[in-house]
C-alpha cells in the first residue's frame, strides 16, 4: 500500500541544512525542487479500462478535466486528491485497486454536485473498493471494523446484547418494542454510536427526554437493532451490507409502527435509497425533521446564551436535500446566536467520517496533512462561534477529538442538537 518512490530520490541522501548558502544565496529548502520530473513514457489505459469496466465505474471515464471537483473536494483541502486527479492517474497507469488514494473518498458528494459530466464517485469508489475487498487489499483498521460489524452487528465491536444499556438510569422510559407488544407511532432507529459511544449516549438520553416530553409514543429495537450497513456499502463491503440489510428488514418486519425515526443520516440514507429495493419500505424521517415539525410543542423557554454554528452532514444535506430542519431547530433556541460557516448548506465541508472514513483514521493521517474533522473544526472556530452543533452521530466524537487536537478546548464545544433542545426545554437529563 505504499506509494511509489522515484528511484531518483534516496531519502537517506537528502540533507536539509538550515540556512544553507551557496554563492551568497540562501538555498535552504530548495533541494526538493531540483529533481527531474519523471517523464510519462506510457499511457497504460488498461488501468482506466479496469475501472470503467466495473458496474458503477463507468463514469470515471467521462472526466474532461474541468477540475471543478478539486476546489470542493474536502480531501484536496488537506492533500492532493480528487476525481479529476484520479482520472489522470488512471490514464498514466496507476493501479487504483492497490493505491492509497482508493480509501480517501468520503463519498461526501460535493464533487458530483458540481460535476458537469456527472462523474459519480458515489458509484465509482464503492465499485473499486468492492474489488479491493474481494482481493483482500483493505487497510487493516477498516478490515477490523468489517469483521467486528459482521460478528457483533456494530462497528465498535460492542456486545450486541448491551445495545439498550444506555436506557437504564434514565428518568424517562425508553421502551423496547419487543416488550411493548403493540403497534407504536414511532420506532426509533438509534444506531451504533448513539447506543455505545459515551458522547453519543449523551445525545440519545437528551433525545429520549425530548421525545418523552413531547408525549411521543415511541420504542426502540434494543438488542435486535444492527448497524444499518450504509457506510459498509460505500466502503466496498457490499456483502456485509446485504447481510445487514436482510437481517434488519426481517427484524423490522416483525413490528408495527408508523414512523421509522433515525438518528443517523447514514441510516436515513440507507432506509430511503437502499432498503426499498430489498423489500424494506418505511416512512423514514431524520430526527431533526421530526422535531422541526414540533417546535411549538417543545416549550423552548430556557434561554441558552450560546453562539452556535452548524455542520451539515453530507448524508442529510447533499445526499438527501435536508438543510432546513436542523436550522429551524437551532434558530428556535431562545437566546442563541447562529453563525454559518463559510462552507455550509450545499457546499458544507465533510467531517471525514463517511464512506468508511470513520474507520480509516490512520490511513487519513498517513495520506493527509490533517484530518477533515480538524479542518472543519478550524472553520467552526473561525466563525467566532462557541458551540458546534451536529446532527449526525459520527460527528460528536470526531469533532471533539479534533477540538482537542487543534487546541481549541477553550474555544469550542460540540453538542448534538438534541442536547441543545433538551437544555432549552429545561429537561433535567440534558447534556
Amino acid at each position, binding site marked *: 500500500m505504499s506509494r511509489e518512490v522515484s528511484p531518483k530520490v534516496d531519502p537517506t541522501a537528502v540533507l536539509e541544512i538550515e540556512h544553507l548558502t551557496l554563492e551568497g544565496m540562501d538555498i535552504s529548502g530548495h533541494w526538493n525542487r531540483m529533481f527531474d*520530473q519523471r*517523464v510519462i513514457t506510457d499511457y497504460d489505459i488498461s488501468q482506466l479500462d479496469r475501472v470503467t469496466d466495473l458496474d458503477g465505474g463507468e463514469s470515471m471515464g467521462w472526466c474532461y478535466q474541468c477540475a471543478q471537483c478539486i476546489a470542493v473536494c474536502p480531501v484536496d483541502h488537506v492533500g492532493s486528491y480528487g476525481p479529476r486527479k484520479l482520472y*489522470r492517474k488512471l*490514464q498514466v497507469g496507476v493501479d487504483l485497486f492497490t493505491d492509497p488514494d482508493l480509501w480517501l473518498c468520503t463519498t461526501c458528494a460535493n464533487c458530483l454536485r458540481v460535476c458537469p459530466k456527472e462523474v459519480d464517485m458515489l458509484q465509482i469508489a464503492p465499485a473499486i473498493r468492492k474489488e479491493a475487498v474481494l482481493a483482500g487489499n483493505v487497510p487493516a483498521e477498516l478490515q477490523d471494523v468489517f469483521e467486528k460489524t459482521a460478528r457483533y452487528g456494530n462497528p465498535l465491536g460492542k456486545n450486541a446484547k448491551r445495545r439498550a444499556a444506555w436506557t437504564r438510569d434514565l428518568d424517562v422510559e425508553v421502551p423496547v418494542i419487543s416488550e411493548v407488544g403493540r403497534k407504536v407511532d414511532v420506532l426509533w432507529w438509534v444506531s451504533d454510536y448513539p447506543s455505545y459511544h459515551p458522547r453519543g449516549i449523551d445525545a440519545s438520553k437528551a433525545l429520549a427526554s425530548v421525545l418523552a416530553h413531547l408525549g411521543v409514543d415511541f420504542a426502540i429495537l434494543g438488542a435486535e437493532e444492527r448497524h444499518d450497513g450504509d457506510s459498509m456499502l460505500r466502503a466496498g463491503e457490499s456483502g456485509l451490507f446485504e447481510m445487514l440489510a436482510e437481517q434488519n428488514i426481517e427484524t423490522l418486519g416483525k413490528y408495527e409502527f408508523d414512523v421509522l425515526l433515525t438518528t443517523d443520516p447514514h441510516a436515513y440514507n440507507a432506509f430511503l435509497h437502499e432498503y426499498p429495493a430489498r423489500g424494506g419500505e418505511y416512512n423514514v424521517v431524520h430526527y431533526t425533521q421530526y422535531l422541526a415539525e414540533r417546535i411549538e410543542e417543545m416549550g423552548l423557554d430556557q434561554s441558552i446564551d450560546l453562539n452556535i454554528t452548524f455542520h451539515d452532514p453530507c448524508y442529510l444535506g447533499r445526499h438527501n436535500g435536508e438543510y432546513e430542519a436542523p436550522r429551524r431547530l437551532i434558530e428556535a433556541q431562545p437566546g442563541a446566536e447562529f453563525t454559518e460557516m463559510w462552507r455550509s448548506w450545499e457546499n458544507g465541508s465533510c467531517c471525514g467520517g463517511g464512506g468508511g472514513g470513520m474507520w480509516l483514521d490512520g490511513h487519513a493521517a498517513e495520506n493527509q496533512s490533517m484530518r477533515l474533522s480538524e479542518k472543519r473544526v478550524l472553520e467552526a472556530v473561525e466563525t467566532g462561534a462557541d458551540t458546534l452543533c451536529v446532527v449526525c452521530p459520527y460527528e460528536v466524537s470526531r469533532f471533539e477529538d479534533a477540538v482537542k487536537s487543534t487546541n481549541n478546548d477553550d474555544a469550542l464545544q460540540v453538542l448534538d442538537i438534541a442536547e441543545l433542545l433538551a437544555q432549552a426545554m429545561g429537561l433535567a437529563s440534558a447534556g
Partner: protein
Amino acid sequence: MPEGRIAVIGAGPAGLEAARLAADLGAQVTLIEKNDSMGGMPIQANYAALTHGFRSAEEAMGEMISAVAEHPNVDILTGTTVTAMSGSAPEFSLTLSGGESLDAGSIIVATGFRHFDPGRETQQYGYYEFPDVITLADAESMLKEKNFVRPSNGEPPERVAFIQCVGSRDRQIGNEFCSKVCCGISSKQAIEIREQVPDARVFIFYIDMRMYGYWENEIYWPAQEKHKVNYVKGIVTEILQKGDKLVVRGEDTTMGRPMEVAMDIVVLAVGMEPSQGTRDMAGILGLGTNKYGFIEQDHNSLDTVATSVPGVFAVGAARGPADLDDSIATAGAAAAKAVAFVSAGVLA
C-alpha cells in the same frame, strides 16, 4: 421572374446548395467547376463520413450533385475556370477558360479551402520524413477504404495519436485563426478508428477542445465515454523515430510532467487555408481579402455573405474556416440575396 443569370463558382457543398436554391427560386444559374467532377473537397479528398452526422460523404454529396444536375435551370460547366471579369453589377461579364464569355447579374463565389500542408512552414512533425505521420485527409481516405493501417508496413496500429491545431492558431505560420472543424473531425475519426480497429488505443493531444454546439454531446462525449478515446491536454512538440515506433514528445499539462510516448500512427489535425481558387477569384473579381487570404467579410454588417463588390457574394470556406452547416447556411443566404439582387436590381 428573376432577370439576369447567376454565376456560381465552385461546385463543392456550398456552391451546389447555392446553385440549387437559386434555381429553385426561378433564377437561371451557371455552375462553374474547375475540376472534371463536382462535390468539392469531400469528394476530391475522399472523405469517409461527414462531421457531424456520420453520413457517408459520397452519398450525401451524390444527392446534392443530382439535385443540381437534374435541375432545368442550372447549366453546369466542369473543367472550367473564370479567367477574367469585366463590367459591374448587375451586368458582369465573365471570361471562361475556354475563351467564351458569360453574362451574369450576380456572382456567388464558393471556391472553398485547402488543407494546411504540414511540411510547408516547419518540419517539426516530420510529415514528409515519417510515413506513419499522416494528416486528417490521409486518415479519411484510409477510413473510407476501411483499411486504417500504418503506411510504413501495412499493419493495423495499436496506438494512434492525433495532434490538434497543426497549421492553425500559429503566429509563426501566419494562421492565427482557429480552423473550427479539426477538433470535431479528429474526434469523429477517433471514433471510426475505434470501430474499425477495436484494439487500437487512440489519444488526442489538444490545447483546447473546441467542440462548439452539438459537436460537444454528439461527437466529443461519445468519443470519450463510449469509444474510450483518451484526451490529453498539451499538444506534442516534436515527433522522433525510435525503432519502428514514433515517439511523441511534449508536456502532459494537467499532470505537469514531460511526456514521451510511443505511437504507431500520428494524425496531424491540419487546419484550413484559402484554396488557390479562392485566392484567384478574389484577385480576378477584385474582392477584398483578409490577411490570411480568405474573402473578407464585414463583421459589423451582420451580412454573412456580402463582399466588397456589390452583387458578388462569398459562401462557405472561401470566407474562412467553416463546417458543412456553415457552408450550406451561407449558400442559402447568398442564393436568396443573389436572386433578390437580379430580380429587383437591388444593390445589396
